[in-house]
């Protein structure tokens, strides 16, 4: 451990320190939500600044090659910090009326984010696993954060039990891979796998390890048929937590896939490509089909997030299915990263609106809650429409380009992956139906008699503003779009250069 190591990893240390600081502050000034929230918001902004500063210098491996700070790390770290920021801005309006404290919430959230940041730069299987645990354990607690609410704890226990089950499976996969290659360092794993005889069959233990790893990560990204926990955990969680759960752990799990599958297991990508293609296809389709039948908006968005996992996996499949060294490989990864950014903001925005509506206790997330919103709270209705249109993939929103990128990458990759492109387009068309159903309720139904005005705090408005601006700007304003794309491209190239170099 040297000074440069510490400088390079300073954003991560900063986030952890911030979490501890908030706990200490809460002990000194108990029950002061404003202090915790203010500290967190300021801290996250500083942390983002720090990440950008660190990103200016050369990419380097630190901690004896266990961690790396490269453009991909920076790209993902900034995204994670933004996700945390929006979540913290949205949360008080929901938590305060329910008597839930902010301090523990933000601290737990920051621990989870530090886990995500650990994954983003991890170059070691053990660090990867620990990062994953640091990501998901606070996630379980956040899901059960409304501990007096039966739905919240029910979602949490389901999430916890199944999550731990999948963690054990994932760990077994890691152990087999590790035992086979004899190293935990990702670079050396890749080098060891690259030396394998490409003509003959792989060792069964390696394939079994691959199967266990696939199952583990497929669970974390909520790919069908490992998605069961998603609807229950999402519906039960306090709404701001649902927003976070639907993007934070998902994007972090994709970061894990990038570091593990795209980097360490790249030499044997021909073996896992078919499974990814099949999983992507059924994930998109099933997510959409079931979302069609939902009457609870949170649950509908949960299924829709499964469908979005499928779209992101199309990008992964494009990378995996493309010939090594081809342009489509890069396009696929770029699409995956771009989609993650667009998805993070539009989905957080949609959940933020649901949170805002549930400002008063006892307001459900049933679709009837949205009836006549266009009349009652035009701004909320317009923003919700924006997010839903973006989720549908209607141009010129961010969601449209995200879909366009992954689909075009899939077409470029050719072969079976191009079939995925067609499935994705068909699914996008079907998805319009259930997203629009909410729009119908907002603009074409009368508000219920019992409806009371929607209240929003300043923080909530700031959170909504960030997500809305990003959703529009990524679609419409070229400097923003090209900035995100450039960033994604540089980040994607990092992985490709390294895998090509062995």
């Amino acid at each position, binding site marked *: 451990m040297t000074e440069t190591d510490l400088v390079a990893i300073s954003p991560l240390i900063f986030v952890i320190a911030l979490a501890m600081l908030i706990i200490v502050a809460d002990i000194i000034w108990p029950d002061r939500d404003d202090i915790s929230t203010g500290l967190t918001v300021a801290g996250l902004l500083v942390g983002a600044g720090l990440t950008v500063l660190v990103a200016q210098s050369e990419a380097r491996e630190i901690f004896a090659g266990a961690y790396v700070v490269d453009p991909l790390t920076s790209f993902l770290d900034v995204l994670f910090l933004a996700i945390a920021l929006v979540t913290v801005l949205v949360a008080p309006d929901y938590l305060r009326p329910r008597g839930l404290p902010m301090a523990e919430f933000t601290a737990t959230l920051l621990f989870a984010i530090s886990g995500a940041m650990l994954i983003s730069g991890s170059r070691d299987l053990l660090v990867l696993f620990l990062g994953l645990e640091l990501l998901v354990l606070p996630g379980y607690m956040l899901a059960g954060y409304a501990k007096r609410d039966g739905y919240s704890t029910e979602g949490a*226990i389901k999430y916890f039990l199944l999550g731990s089950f999948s963690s054990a499976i994932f760990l077994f996969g890691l152990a087999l891979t590790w035992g086979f290659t004899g190293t935990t360092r990702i670079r050396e794993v890749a080098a060891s796998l690259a030396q394998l005889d490409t003509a003959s069959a792989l060792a069964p233990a390696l394939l079994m390890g691959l199967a266990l790893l696939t199952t583990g990560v497929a669970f974390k990204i909520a790919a069908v048929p490992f998605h*069961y926990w998603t609807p229950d955990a999402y519906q039960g969680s306090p709404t701001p937590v649902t927003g976070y759960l639907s993007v934070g752990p998902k994007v972090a799990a994709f970061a894990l896939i990038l570091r593990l599958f795209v980097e360490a297991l790249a030499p044997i990508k021909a073996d896992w490509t078919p499974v990814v293609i099949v999983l992507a296809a059924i994930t998109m389709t099933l997510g959409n089909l079931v979302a069609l039948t939902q009457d609870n908006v949170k649950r509908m968005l949960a299924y829709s997030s499964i469908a979005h996992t499928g779209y992101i996996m199309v990008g992964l499949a494009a990378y995996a299915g493309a010939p090594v060294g081809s342009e489509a490989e890069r396009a696929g990864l770029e699409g995956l990263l771009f989609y993650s950014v667009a998805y993070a903001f539009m989905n957080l925005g949609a959940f933020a609106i649901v949170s805002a509506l549930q400002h008063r206790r006892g307001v459900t997330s049933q679709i009837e809650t949205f009836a006549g919103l266009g009349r009652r709270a035009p701004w909320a209705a317009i923003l919700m429409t924006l997010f839903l249109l973006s989720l549908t993939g209607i141009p010129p929103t961010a969601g449209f*380009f995200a879909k366009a990128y992954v689909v075009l990458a899939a*077409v470029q990759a050719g072969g079976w992956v191009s079939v995925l492109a067609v499935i994705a387009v068909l699914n996008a068309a079907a998805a319009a139906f259930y997203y629009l159903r909410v729009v119908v309720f907002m603009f074409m139904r009368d508000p219920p008699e019992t409806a009371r005005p929607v209240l929003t705090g300043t923080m909530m408005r700031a959170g909504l503003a960030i997500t809305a601006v990003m959703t529009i700007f990524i679609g419409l304003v070229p400097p923003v779009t090209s900035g995100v794309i450039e960033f994604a491209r540089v980040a994607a190239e990092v992985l490709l250069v390294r895998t090509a170099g062995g």
Partner: protein
Amino acid sequence: MSGFLLTAAETETPVAAAGATDMLLVTLLVALPLAGFALTALLGRRLYTKAWVIAVPVMIVTWLIGLYVIAQALGGAYGEEGLHFTLYRWIPAGDFTVDAGFLVDGLTAALLIVVTTVGMLVHVYSIGYMAHEPGRWRFFAYLNLFMFSMLLLVLADNFLVLFAAWELVGLCSYLLIGYWYKRRSAALAAKKAFIVNRVGDVGFGLGIMAIWTTVGTLNFHEVFEALPEAGLEPWMITGIALLLFAGAVGKSAQFPLHVWLPDAMEGPTPVSALIHAATMVNAGVYLVARTSPIFAQSPFAMLVVASIGIFTAILAASIAMTQTDIKRVLAYSTLSQLGYMFAALGVGAYFAAIFHLMTHGFFKGLLFLGSGSVIHAVHEEQDMNRMGGLWRKIPITHITMLIGSIAISGIPFFAGFFSKDEILGESFKLGFGWVWFIGVVVAVMTAFYMFRLMGKTFYGPSHVDPHVADKIHESPPTMTIPLILLAIPSMFLGVAIGWPPEGGLIHQWLGPVFHEAEELLGHELEPYAIFGIDGFLLGASVAVAIVGMVMAWRYFGFRVPLLGAEVQPRARRVEVLTERFRGWYDASFHKWWFDDLNHLLFVRIGGAVAAALWWFDVNIVDGAVNGVARLTQGTGREIRQIQTGRVQNYALGIAIGLLVVAVSYLVVTPR
């Protein structure tokens, strides 16, 4: 920001006259309605009864700017290629770059004439029509948003912007059809329109993707230049063309995706006039015309376009003859006329198609607004069996609708005559005799059902509810003035731009646009011969129009405007048709022939076919659309059963998933 704003495309140098002013004005053309939408949406509720004070003036200014741009474009100020400039680089991602660019050429200008004029008049009309509607700010906001989208659609210079606008007009149409959402039928109709359109959009989207992957650009001009040189297999060109056509079929409501348009009449009548008659439904025709260089490379795709077009024309016309809801007659009529346009596009008569699009936009807009005025007068009654004798009470509506009906029926020298005759004549001369023949049959039906509509509504004894009858009065000036203003082009537009045949203004305007497609098709037209084949074709179509019209008079009554003579309707005549017609037409062969044909067509076969087609439409096509929706939802409902809520079930699912994945790695896909 200014760095990438308003830069003329480097590849093409617009002539000097098209300076920054023109670019600014074209940009304003889309920016103003958008601003109008934003302002109305934000301030709407405070404007209260005067919800229109922003939307309508904005539209009038837009119209004036539109007139200037149209004059410039058609006056040749923008050169043969048209004004083409890039607002900004929309998607700047390596090889996937798309510019938000505008293109104003003859075709765009032709569309602009219809879109801005009808749009402006419908806005004015809505002031009166929606006067008693609470919450009408919503209506005006949507209307402005629609105008923005539609103008963006016709001004786009590449497929992606076009697609964005395509989706936006669909969304606006959806919002406006469901405007009276408390009516369940309206909400259902809106949903149906959206779903059916999405089916077409999937095709359109795939077509755009196919274009991008084959030629690597989405700009219209670049695509048209690159496609013939890309060395594509013929089936690929056909595939791209048919995918694009799928989008057009959805938006323009052609068979088999036509089911949404009649239901869309649940929306307020100004919406029906603007979106579902004059503008949005034309987008499909515009798309096929705009991409004519692609279609021209595939004879098969052309054949498909022509067949679907002419089949929709006769299908819709036959149905229109039996409807009693005034707006539904007009809706089927719109389908039928759009079918004509596609038939024209399919045979390669591009000028005729756009010409008919323009004339139809005006006279169908007029007819719809007129029907709105009628509905208004008889207190929201749409059933023609409960109208009649209205001509005395609402004279302006009557006269203007009569003009519209004459125009659509193809009576010389009203607008529809020129455009319809050009479609039929060119079909025949280009060797599509069957298209011509069916087209002529449709012309008879058109004249018949339009004057049936006129007769049932305006002439003969009144069947209006006695309580309402006393209160019938002419609509306010905000409604009648647009009617009068639309009646003028319905009368004179044809002769103004369509005469002399094949040398009229419309040919000069659109010549450069369709030059490439015409060359690809290799069409060589004989010079127009009024005393030869053209005279015969013209005579034939006029004759059938008159026959249809006269028959309708006989059955449903008429009042000859200047002479003041009245033909009494004969309600029982349909039942005793055979004998009467035999006696009437015995004298001459032709008359006998028509007698027989009419008998056959309208009484026996016509009735049966119309009934069968109606049945087919309601049960099979409609049923299929609903069935797909039901099937999808049903599947979803089945699948959601696996979400039992029990952790053990979920865990078992994961364990089985793990086994399947492991077996697939170890057994199914080993190296």
